[in-house]
């Protein structure tokens, strides 16, 4: 058992720190540090900086322009990124459709799509969930009917995160419903500018527009946009889902949020309650910290197993469940730290460029919206209840 970094890894860490110090756009860092939501341009600017450095394809193999990093290097990268207040890497292109294309796509598709994904020149979004197919994803109804060189797509997708920013969408569509419901699903890439595609905002509890419904009305999609085989989409999607669950855990960002909270409590600005004197609160904080350290080591164990050649298995469900529980525990701790100023709803205050007189401590009024918004994390990516079903079935053998 050994988790000490090698000399090479320590040198790598220094290089990563340098990058974040010097090459990440400062305006983006400031927004994240202040709890503002970065906009489309911010994300693109950050990801293109990564691309320039050759680091956009964190998980990609070298042959497709990826880093080819070891598990330890990826661990270092994610921790340094979070510590430097980098925004999350938008996963839909780089972490989701990219790997599907280089794993299951044909050479034409690789040549056509991968470079733009890696360089963040094209913004992708995900078309999985439907109004009546949430936890029961395989029950999806959006249909793609073959018509010569095209599929005609009809139906709708929902909870499409940042779909209003997107140029392309990757979709699970039904191409056959004669057999088992999982078997008639295909994986299709759709240009959002195609006639018949409509994006409708969904406003969430925090008052934000982050997710969307996407409607397809007789949308013609060239057959060359089908990834892999028709009817095999479910297989490709399942691989993705395992990665998505691992990604959702968010250990490094949670560490950053916890460290920031402890710094706040150590030297509370005016208007922040003196919570270090409240042992009830502090016990919650300590227990959350312990849970997070445990999860960090669980993640390291999974990474270490992957490094020695084992595939990430249903254990990734632990990462999803515990990671999201910790995120929500942190939301609650931060909400408590907002004290009486948790109540005002002043969204302008946590937008970039706000120059007015702050209501209460600057961060405080954004804590309730964040708490509301983050209720989603135990729902999306397969609800935590679905994850426990997976553990019961695939790990415990029920």
């Amino acid at each position, binding site marked *: 058992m050994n988790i000490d970094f090698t000399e090479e890894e320590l040198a790598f860490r220094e290089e990563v720190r340098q990058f974040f110090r010097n090459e990440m756009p400062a305006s983006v860092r400031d927004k994240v540090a202040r709890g503002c939501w970065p906009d489309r341009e911010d994300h693109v600017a950050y990801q293109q900086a990564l691309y320039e450095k050759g680091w956009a394809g964190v998980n990609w193999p070298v042959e497709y322009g990826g880093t080819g990093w070891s598990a330890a290097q990826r661990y270092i990268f994610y921790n340094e990124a979070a510590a430097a207040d980098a925004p999350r890497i938008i996963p839909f292109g780089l972490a989701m459709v990219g790997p599907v294309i280089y794993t299951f796509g044909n050479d034409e598709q690789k040549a056509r799509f991968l470079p733009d994904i890696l360089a963040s020149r094209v913004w992708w979004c995900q078309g999985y*969930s439907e109004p*009546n*197919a*949430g*936890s*029961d994803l395989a*029950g999806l109804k959006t249909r793609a009917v073959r018509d010569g060189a095209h599929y005609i797509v009809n139906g709708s997708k*929902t*909870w499409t995160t940042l779909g209003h920013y997107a140029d392309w969408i990757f979709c699970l569509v039904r191409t056959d419903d004669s057999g088992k419901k999982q078997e008639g699903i295909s994986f299709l890439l759709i240009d959002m500018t195609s006639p018949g595609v409509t994006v409708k905002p*969904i*406003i*969430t*509890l925090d*008052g934000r527009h982050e997710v969307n419904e996407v409607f397809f009305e007789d949308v013609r999609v060239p057959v060359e946009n089908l990834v892999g085989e028709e009817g095999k989409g479910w297989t490709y999607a399942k691989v993705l889902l395992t990665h998505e669950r691992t990604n959702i855990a968010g250990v490094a960002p949670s560490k950053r949020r916890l460290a920031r909270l402890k710094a706040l409590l150590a030297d509370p600005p*005016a*208007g922040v*309650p003196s*919570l270090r004197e*409240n*042992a*009830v*609160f502090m016990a*919650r904080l300590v227990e959350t910290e312990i849970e997070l350290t445990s999860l960090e080591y669980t993640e390291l164990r999974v990474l270490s197993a992957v490094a020695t050649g084992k595939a990430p298995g249903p254990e990734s469900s632990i990462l999803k469940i515990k990671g999201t529980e910790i995120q929500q525990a942190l939301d609650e701790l931060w*909400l*408590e730290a*907002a*004290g*009486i*100023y*948790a*109540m*005002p*709803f*002043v969204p302008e205050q946590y937008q970039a460029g706000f120059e007015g*007189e702050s*209501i*209460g*401590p600057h961060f405080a009024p954004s804590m*309730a*919206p964040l*708490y*509301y*918004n983050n*209720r*989603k994390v*135990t*729902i*999306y990516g397969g*609800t*935590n*209840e679905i994850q*426990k079903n997976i553990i019961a079935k695939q790990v415990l053998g029920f």
Partner: protein
Amino acid sequence: MDFSLNDIQQMLQDSASRFVRNDYGFASRRAIVESAAGYSAAHWQTYAELGWLALPFPEEVGGMGGSLSDLMVLQTELGRGLIVEPYLATVVMAGNLINRHAAAGQKQALLEALISGEQLFSFAGFEAAAQHDIRLISTTAGADGDGYRLNGHKAVVIGAGLGGKLVVVARTGGRPGDAGGLSLFLLDEDAEGVSLQGYTTNDGLRAADVRLSDVLVGPEALLGDAGTAAPAINAMLNDAIVALSAEAVGVMETLLSRTVEFCKVRKQFGVPIGSFQVLQHRMADMFMECEQARSMLYYATIAVAGGCDADVAASRLKVRIGKAARLVGQQAIQLHGGMGVTDELDVGHYFKRLTMINTQLGSRDAHLHRLVQLQSVA
């Protein structure tokens, strides 16, 4: 030993329930929240006509002489409607305080104006550094001629900014940490030196931060005797915790029934999701939390009204409500899935209110810590 409603309570429950059902649907509530006024003046008049504004006040000032139990019954129903009018601020907090502490002469006129619906009030007590602990208040009211000069900053004054009057807590003596030296002043929102920074709260109420800079008032602005307001404020806050908790019970019971309905019709995997045992047990847990919260509400209502261990009872209630609200609110959202986090569905708004109720008047953590400290020295 009788927990059934008496005739007045039954009448209150019926009228409030009818009002919420007929006149306070979710769409009309949304319109009120989004209106410039931020509350419905017409509804406020209805509340006056239904006697709700008169409920807790003595008959000699035109009140109904209702008990804390009566108020509890009404508030529970108002909770089911997510009412945004400043009933808690005006009636339960500011009015209560006026009734407890103002001089007889002041009381009559102020409460009559309140009861008739003409005048709104808000309680400008809390401050950033004090949070909900009234003893830590630092706003000062120094003597100035035969009047006073007020300076300070009141945080998140619920119901302020609607053109009502502010009942301000300020120190005519003592220092932050002292219970003595607290006095009450009545100010107009637009008085010289008073500046309001208004906003909507996360749960759709109107509120404001109130800054007082050299606000000069005459002796008539002082409510009751100087320096002796702490017991009245404390008693009012205990009543307010009961009323707020009653509202929370109404919100939670609504969330439970919404969730049960939803799980009976929402299908996944070809069956209603309510057929899954894990979700059934989750709803059984929500049900038990609602019932236990309601029971604690009864206990605390009796204890606070009887003045027996009222501070402890109020803190215990707030802790119990905070725990129930967390489970019921979070699970209502979880079981609604994606729909639960949309602005469109009412469920999310009940959840938001419930979350803010935990913050209002001191959180579960704050009250539990207070109880632990009391136990540790008891």
